[in-house]
């Protein structure tokens, strides 16, 4: 690093906070435009069917309703392209921006009503007479897999994609293994649920033939290009503007139907149009995530050494393949084994279409699910083999000497999409975590009934592949007021981007942080940008800003030397001034007249960073109520290098609590007709302030990333990844004497209570834990060959 390095590594209080704390953030719902109309959207009330008729006359007759737009008004209805993994075959299952006759999930857009107020627009939606023919719904992936009812008849299948992850020779490994166990596991459908619902404000300038859309997030440049193509405009004629964004977590900012419909409506009526999603709408319209179940097997030596894993995983993808919908199934196949040395692996993942809201990424996509499956398998093996949970993991973590360690080969994809753990010492973090937690002492609590509750502890390890490429861009320039303007192609979704980028720029330029202005996420700033996904902003955006700041530093030195005399190398930058060795200096404001400006690009050749960590939990289970209390939770991770310990710690704690939501309560429940039963925040429960008060996180920087100049690794997702498996194992260990097998999430009070009640009946008069049986290794059975 250049300069005195005051900011990077320091808990710099956030620049963003000054406006948010005063209620002066500017979210899209806070914006108005002269002459603006309000949009409300009629959505499919049924899971599967056909539109027979749509009569908007009564809606149009409502005073204040200005227009109703359905597929007929749009004409050629575009479909939404995949942003990630646009594999051949997927084009058959893309979502049209508005229903064109067929309805495939509750919540699918059918018509847009434009009115003078949001209330009138909603009145209009209510007045549209919709005639539909109901078709039998594909309500779950099992029905889907029979391919009798098809979502897309012309394709002849409900199977959107199959991924296979392969390492070594799993068949041979299982044939010869002394111990194997097979199990079925399931992770429920849940969702990112940012606190700010989505919103858009589109303005069409008919004179200039320009479209401006406010409310962009995550990937504005990709979405700009997508929208431009759909509207038949040049990308340069479309601007996407990012305002303050109330949380993303993977779901917000992907290209959704509304990202076309609202701009189209603005052009159609020649007036600005604003649409603000309500929460019920959000729960059916925004990407769902996570739903997957599996039948998987583990093979081990008697000493616990893992020989192989194999099996089949089914993803309930919902009604369409959306922009990033294949990331979860891909990751389940490629990264099933997480941080563990699994020399032989064969994992087949089938992504099936159902009549539910389409799914996409949610923080740690596929990794949370894979970790649950994998950690459960490992725990069951440890119990069967009589090994301590920590020792079982210690023996199987990828070793420092094995780095870089190649993960499974993926098909389709092949060598082009290979990825490898980039380095570090996984065991070091595990040991630190165990010591901080007091594993050896707490082991004695395992399964004990204390104060009326059963206590259990568990440990899990994880990797977070992050910092996806290909690149990020930045531009830095001196401005006449003496500040440095930093433009970066990264996007802010609430993670503190402005502060972190300012820290990097200020340190590199040796200047006070309050003289750095960060601009991000909006397309007018730069020619290209890649945005905020896969925990990439600090890794790629930060590195681009760093490279740009270094170049700007050289330019400033050159310009100052030219004016002050002497060689550029003799110029140093201190507190926002360029100074010669004999003390003569120029301010940045003076030098700005020279037009000092640099463009920078940081490329990582798609080489991911791998943050890694371990987590431990101590739970107490009340079998009378099924309530589980998390008495202690600790996550330790090595993130390479910490730019801001405050924001990093916030990512860790926040991620863990989101993961606990998925482990215990969050659940998008559908009935047999494909109706969502959890359409409000009174039904879809997320953690509250009183649920999980004891969470600890420690971040280390022992092993900087080798793939970028800052040494940073993506760190927004790691701590959520192990939570499901960890909690299930802790509960399983607490209830070991009941033979409980917490193999399904969420571990709601009802489910935990039922586990205790059923096990009590089954085991009445029997010995505590069922002995491993030595016949066929069917689901739920283990096999030890003697």
């Amino acid at each position, binding site marked *: 690093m250049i300069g005195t390095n005051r900011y990077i590594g320091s*808990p710099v*209080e*956030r620049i*963003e*906070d*000054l*406006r*948010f*704390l*005063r*209620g*002066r*953030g*500017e*979210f899209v*719902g*806070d914006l108005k435009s002269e002459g603006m109309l309000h949009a409300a959207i009629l959505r499919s009330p049924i899971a599967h069917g056909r539109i027979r008729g749509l009569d908007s006359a009564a809606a149009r007759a409502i005073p204040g309703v200005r227009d109703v737009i359905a597929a007929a008004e749009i004409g050629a209805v575009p479909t939404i392209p995949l942003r990630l993994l646009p594999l051949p075959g997927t084009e058959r299952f893309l979502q049209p921006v508005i229903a064109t006759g067929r309805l495939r999930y509750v919540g699918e857009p059918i018509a847009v009503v434009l009115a003078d107020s949001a*209330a009138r627009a909603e009145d209009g939606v209510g007045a549209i007479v919709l005639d539909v023919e109901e078709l039998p719904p594909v309500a779950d992936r099992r029905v889907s897999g029979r391919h009798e009812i098809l979502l897309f008849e012309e394709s002849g299948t409900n199977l959107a994609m199959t991924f296979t992850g392969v390492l070594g020779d799993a068949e041979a490994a299982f044939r010869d293994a002394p111990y194997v166990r097979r199990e079925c596991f399931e992770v429920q459908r849940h969702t*990112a*649920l*940012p*606190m*700010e*619902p989505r919103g858009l404000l589109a303005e069409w300038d008919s004179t200039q033939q320009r479209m401006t859309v406010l409310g962009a997030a995550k990937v504005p440049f990709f979405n700009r290009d997508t929208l431009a193509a759909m509207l038949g405009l040049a990308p340069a004629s479309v601007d996407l503007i990012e305002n*303050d*964004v*109330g*949380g993303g*977590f993977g779901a917000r900012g992907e290209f959704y139907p509304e990202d076309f419909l609202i701009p189209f409506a603005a052009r159609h009526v020649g007036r600005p149009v604003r649409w*603000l999603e*309500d*929460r*019920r709408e959000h729960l059916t319209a925004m990407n769902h995530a996570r739903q997957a179940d599996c039948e998987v097997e583990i093979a081990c030596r008697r000493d616990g050494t893992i020989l192989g894993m194999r099996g089949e995983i089914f993803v309930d993808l919902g009604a369409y393949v959306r922009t990033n919908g294949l990331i979860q199934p891909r990751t389940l196949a490629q990264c099933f084994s997480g941080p563990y040395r699994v020399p032989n692996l064969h994992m087949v993942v089938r992504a099936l279409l159902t009549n539910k809201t389409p799914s996409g990424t949610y923080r740690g996509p596929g990794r949370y699910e894979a970790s649950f499956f994998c950690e459960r398998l490992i725990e069951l093996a440890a119990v069967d083999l009589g090994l301590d949970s920590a020792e079982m993991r210690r023996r199987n973590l990828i070793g420092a000497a094995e780095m870089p360690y190649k993960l499974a080969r993926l098909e389709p994809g092949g060598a082009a999409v290979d990825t490898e753990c980039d380095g570090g010492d996984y065991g070091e973090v595990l040991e630190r975590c165990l010591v901080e937690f007091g594993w050896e002492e707490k082991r004695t609590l395992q399964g004990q009934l204390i104060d009326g509750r059963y206590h259990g502890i568990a440990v899990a390890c994880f990797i977070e592949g992050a910092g996806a490429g290909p690149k990020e861009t930045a531009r830095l320039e001196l401005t006449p007021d003496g500040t440095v303007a930093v433009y970066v192609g990264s996007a802010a*979704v*609430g*993670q*503190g981007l402005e502060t972190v980028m300012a820290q990097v720029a200020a340190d590199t330029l040796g200047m006070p942080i309050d003289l750095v202005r960060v601009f991000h996420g909006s397309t007018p700033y730069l020619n290209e940008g890649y945005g905020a996904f896969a925990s990439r902003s600090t890794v790629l955006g930060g590195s681009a800003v760093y490279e740009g700041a270094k170049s700007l530093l050289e330019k400033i030195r050159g310009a100052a030397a030219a004016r002050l005399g002497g060689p550029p190398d003799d110029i140093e930058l201190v507190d926002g001034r360029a100074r010669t060795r004999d003390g003569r200096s120029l301010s940045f404001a003076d030098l700005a007249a020279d037009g000092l400006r640099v463009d920078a690009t940081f490329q990582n050749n798609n080489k991911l960073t791998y943050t890694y960590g371990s987590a431990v939990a101590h739970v107490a289970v009340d079998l009378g109520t099924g309530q589980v209390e998390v008495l202690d939770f600790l996550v330790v991770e090595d993130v390479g290098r910490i730019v801001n310990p*405050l*924001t990093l*710690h*916030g990512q860790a*704690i*926040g*991620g*863990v*609590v*989101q993961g606990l939501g998925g482990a215990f309560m969050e659940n998008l429940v559908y009935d047999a007709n494909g109706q969502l039963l959890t359409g*409000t*925040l*009174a039904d879809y429960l*997320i*953690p*509250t*302030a*009183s*649920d*999980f*008060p004891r*969470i600890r996180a420690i971040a280390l920087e022992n092993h900087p990333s080798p793939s970028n100049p800052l040494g940073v690794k993506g760190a927004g997702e790691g701590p959520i990844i192990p939570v499901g498996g960890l909690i299930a194992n802790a509960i399983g260990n607490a209830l070991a004497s009941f033979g409980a097998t917490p193999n399904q999430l969420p571990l709601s009070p009802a489910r935990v209570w039922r586990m205790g009640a059923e096990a009590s009946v089954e085991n009445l008069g029997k010995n505590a834990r069922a002995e491993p049986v030595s016949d066929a290794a069917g689901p739920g059975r283990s096999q030890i060959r003697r």
Partner: protein
Amino acid sequence: MQVNFKLNGTPVVVDVEPRMHLADCLRDELRQTGTHLGCEHGACGACTVIVDGAAVRACLMLAVQAEGSSIVTVEGLSTEEALTPLQTAFRKHHALQCGFCTPGMLTTAHALLTDEPDADGDRIRAVLSGNLCRCTGYIPIIDAVLDARAAYRKSDKR
């Protein structure tokens, strides 16, 4: 319908449809957009404002019900100059990330500490459990409110 109330100390008169809720009135009619709407069914708490001293969900109260009352929003808890002690504590503890739930957290915590400057951690957690945050995991928010208590003890409460 015409409604008269005091907003952050200033008398206001506003003409609203009877069905308009207070949050829409504050945001759209009076352009005080610090009050955020996260669910519009009383579950998330982002729209919490202080009505005659009590923390109230502005999405569950009709604007016409505000007649004659005195309402404080997040804007009214702020000054041009320095951050208030509660705001300072939020910043210090990194008790906000995306900032969307923050106005409701601040108004709820302010109403609580005004009445109960000695509230303990359990009490603060119980009261704030009606305000959803998806970013922070709540722990830093509770730490910030605990930290801010001193300022409420010293000052004249009302």
